[in-house]
């Protein structure tokens, strides 16, 4: 055993194994038969490394490379595969329509666990629709605020609500021992946004405070009742039911209030600054009055600060 030329330097490192394998692979592709995949002795001579210790180290690094490569490719094909999400999008239009209508109808039977469809197409589309409605509402209220922040705020608000409140409710459900999975929670809350979409769509076009309150109570209340009933049917114990349902109801209804008023304040701010009566939306073209824009920005900031 020749220990004189102990080569512990980079000849047997991880990266060099990768290079060696790459070279070997290329040589294999060039030649038809596996001459390049020769035994260890030829490898040693080929790469010019001598010494038992160098060879051992090389073999260990070689094995590590193989294992690491296999694990990485397995992990990649597992997680970067879009097909994981495919079962959650397997719906028919009829089913989506049925679920949309069902989301407004509270169930009566709360002693038996209600079935929740773990589907993500409907909720995702509802979130995007809510974003579009918010943009429409913000646009009809004024054209002075920068559109970039409009778009970013709308998307951030809606997705943040959907994902954040779902995660929070899932965590609470885990604490309160409720039988619900994350996808089901996402789905339930997503379909609950249908009521929000309807309310905002109507009240952004017809600006009456009392109309909004009626819609808030009726439409928002119905969709909240539905979600609450489904959750109650899946939870055991009075305290747990109370905690879960109280939190969900509060968050859901307050979100609708926030969406209406945070952006409504902007309308009121402009209307108060300019003149009294309601102007038709398409005549509210951009006015380059710095005072108005400042008032608008201040009001929005105040509204956001108040609700947070």
């Amino acid at each position: 055993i020749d220990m004189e030329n102990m080569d512990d330097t980079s000849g047997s490192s991880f990266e060099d194994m990768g290079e060696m394998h790459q070279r070997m692979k290329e040589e294999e592709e060039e030649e038809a038969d596996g001459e390049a995949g020769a035994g260890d002795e030829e490898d040693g001579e080929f790469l010019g490394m001598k010494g038992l210790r160098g060879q051992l180290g090389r073999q260990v690094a070689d094995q590590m490379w193989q294992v690491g490569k296999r694990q990485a490719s397995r992990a990649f094909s597992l997680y970067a595969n879009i097909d994981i999400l495919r079962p959650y999008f397997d719906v028919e239009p009829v089913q989506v329509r049925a679920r949309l209508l069902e989301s407004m109808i509270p169930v009566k039977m709360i002693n038996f666990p209600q079935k929740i469809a773990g589907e993500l197409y409907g909720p995702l589309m509802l979130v995007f629709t809510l974003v579009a409605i918010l943009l429409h509402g913000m646009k009809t209220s004024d054209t002075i605020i920068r559109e970039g922040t409009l778009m970013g705020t709308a998307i951030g608000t809606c997705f943040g609500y959907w994902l954040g409140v779902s995660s929070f409710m899932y965590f609470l459900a885990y604490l309160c021992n409720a039988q619900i999975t994350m996808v089901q929670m996402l789905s339930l809350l997503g379909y609950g946004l249908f009521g929000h979409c309807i309310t905002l769509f109507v009240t952004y076009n017809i600006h009456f405070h009392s109309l909004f309150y009626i819609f808030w109570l009726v439409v928002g209340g119905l969709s909240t009742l539905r979600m609450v009933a489904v959750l109650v049917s899946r939870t055991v114990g009075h305290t747990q039911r109370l905690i879960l349902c109280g939190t969900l109801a509060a968050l859901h209804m307050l979100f609708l209030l926030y969406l209406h008023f945070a952006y409504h304040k902007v309308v009121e701010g402009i209307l108060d600054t300019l003149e009294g009566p309601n102007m038709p939306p398409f005549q509210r073209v951009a006015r380059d009055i710095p005072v108005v824009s400042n008032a608008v920005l201040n009001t929005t900031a105040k509204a956001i600060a108040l609700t947070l």
Partner: protein
Amino acid sequence: FPGLADVSISQDIPVEGEITVPVGSHSPDEDYSTLDEPVKDTIMRDLKAVGKKFVHVMYPRKSSALLRDWDLWGPLVLCVSLALMLQGGSADSKDDGGPQFAEVFVIIWFGAVVITLNSKLLGGTISFFQSLCVLGYCVMPLTVAMLVCRLVLLAGTGTVSFVIRLIVVGAMFGWSTLASTAFLADSQPPNRKALVVYPIFLFYFVISWMILTFTPQ
């Protein structure tokens, strides 16, 4: 056969000859022979392909040319021109009232990616870039609408101008949605077409809304 027992070639006799592969006039892969053509030919070929796709968008027919040879030149040009035209006021005003270039760009491409993922998840047979290509090319009617809106806004900003802009943008929005639906919905199973069309409708609705509410400062 003793004469054939030893057929080794000795070292000092060079082996020479010619190895030629006859290149047929109808060879399928012309890629290897396009290195020698003049640059003008290459550019003109690509330009013609892009122009043909624009014509396909103008008159949406069920043809596979748009899908087969996808390219992203057209969408890039359209997206950049739309974002430039939607650029609000001057750069030195704080609230210029219009979307910034980056926002329009991000919205268009992010929206197209989301729609593509959605149609793939719903079981579509179209590939990722083909779908991006179709969605990008179908932004063309909306770009034309933006041009018309800017010209109309030069004339004035009143109720009449708003009504004209509304009609134009509405018509172009319908055209965009129909054109992209004609190409994309075919790749879906027949009973799920509505599920794919709806996000496309939302996407072009958002772009149309940005165009309609654009007012120059």
